[in-house]
């Protein structure tokens, strides 16, 4: 939570997370380049820079698939929450690996000639589709996302604008698939690449379409308020220390939380990244976001000092055993 900015708000989980992520890249690139230099000999030998270029390019694609699957997987099972926690670092790592791939391609394919190396690679004389430009476009998107990944941007651009900017990763993914399909896949005849790319695209798109469908259905089934009050179901359905998510017909979501026997309601949208507060728990007397652990007083909507985050609260009343939430924000709960 934000009181003064640090380079990274380190904690043990982030360190372990980053160590595993960097280790995974090292294992992948190590097996690829090491194996290539040792095992590919004679007619099969591949120039070392091309070997490294391919290792880094495919590694970035594998990482991008993992990054993109974490979101919908965490919507499907809370067991994936630890992967979501530091996903931003994984995204930045993906960008760095892709940048190395592009640097090698530009430095090896684009250099030693009579043109600007970047222009020579991104925009070669050609008749077939510009797959190099697809890759470059994807890299630019990943750059903007990595460059704005710090919490300063999240807070000052507002989580909504920040999330909207970061939707561009979907475009980056589509560009990456085209980069491979119209590039490497055109000359690499092995069905392994075709199958892997098809399986990857189907998994990523399928998971997102499934999760998106579920969320859209929830939004469509939102409750319409009667006389300004929303029926949130039986009051005793929300047990102590836990919360329920109530979807309103206009798509707003409200977290109904029980703390020390009392029912309180606040916006379901965490002030940090818009995480679903109602899927969290009360820990140390605060409703805790399942994404990054931001905390709010269940009935005040304010983070414990020294933190300054707030989310809007709603009044709650109980009528014939059913919890009713006032649609308008504010007011004493």
């Amino acid at each position: 939570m934000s009181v003064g900015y640090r380079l990274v708000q380190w904690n043990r989980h982030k360190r372990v997370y980053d160590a595993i992520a960097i280790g995974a890249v090292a294992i992948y690139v190590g097996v690829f380049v090491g194996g290539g230099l040792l095992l590919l000999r004679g007619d099969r030998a591949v120039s070392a820079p091309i070997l490294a270029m391919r290792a880094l390019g495919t590694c970035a694609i594998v990482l991008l698939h993992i990054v993109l699957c974490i979101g919908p997987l965490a919507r499907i099972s809370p067991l994936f929450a630890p992967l979501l926690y530091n996903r931003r670092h994984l995204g930045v790592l993906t960008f760095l690996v892709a940048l190395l791939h592009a640097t090698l391609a530009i430095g090896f394919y684009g250099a030693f000639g009579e043109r600007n190396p970047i222009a020579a690679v991104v925009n070669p004389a050609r008749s077939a589709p510009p797959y190099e430009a697809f890759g470059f476009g994807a890299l630019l998107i990943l750059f903007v996302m990595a460059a704005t990944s710090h919490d300063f941007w999240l807070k000052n651009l507002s989580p909504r604008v920040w999330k909207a900017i970061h939707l561009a990763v979907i475009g980056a993914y589509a560009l990456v698939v085209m980069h491979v399909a119209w590039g490497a896949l055109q000359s690499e005849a092995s069905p392994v690449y075709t199958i892997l790319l098809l399986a990857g695209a189907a998994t990523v798109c399928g998971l997102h379409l499934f999760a998106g469908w579920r969320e859209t259905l929830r939004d469509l089934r939102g409750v319409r308020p009667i006389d300004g009050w929303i029926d949130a179901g039986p009051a005793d359905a929300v047990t102590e220390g836990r919360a329920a998510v109530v979807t309103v017909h206009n798509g707003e979501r409200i977290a109904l939380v029980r703390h020390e026997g009392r029912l309180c309601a606040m916006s379901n949208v965490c002030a940090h990244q818009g995480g679903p507060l109602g899927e969290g728990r009360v820990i140390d007397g605060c409703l805790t976001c399942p994404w990054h652990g931001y905390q709010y007083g269940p009935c005040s909507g304010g983070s414990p000092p020294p933190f300054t985050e707030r989310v809007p609260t709603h009044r709650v009343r109980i009528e014939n055993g059913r919890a009713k939430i006032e649609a308008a924000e504010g007011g004493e709960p």
Partner: protein
Amino acid sequence: MSPIAWILWLLLAYLAVGVAVGIPFVARGVDRVDHAAHGASRWVRLLLLPGAAALWPIVLALWFAAVQRAGPTPARFARGMRPLRLAHALAWAVAAVVIAAGLAGALRQRAQSTAAISEAAP
């Protein structure tokens, strides 16, 4: 010049302006825009520079607004996530169609050209 060459030059010009705006922004502007940035280390400021260079029009707007208001950007509630959820779902639906079409086109191109080559082989 080809369209892609134009785009590359425009991009370079955009980033050059971005760095020119970004350096004073991370040095001084961040403190005006966000009180939490007071006392941020040089490394944090350096880390913010690529983002400032990439989003310099937005950065200028934030900075200008903070100067006008003579205070930091007020905290905004992150509500109204439904349009974003919808945009997210729609964007993936569009991407899935584009990806499927692009993949199908690329695989067809490969199959046809490979067949054409082998059929011509004496």
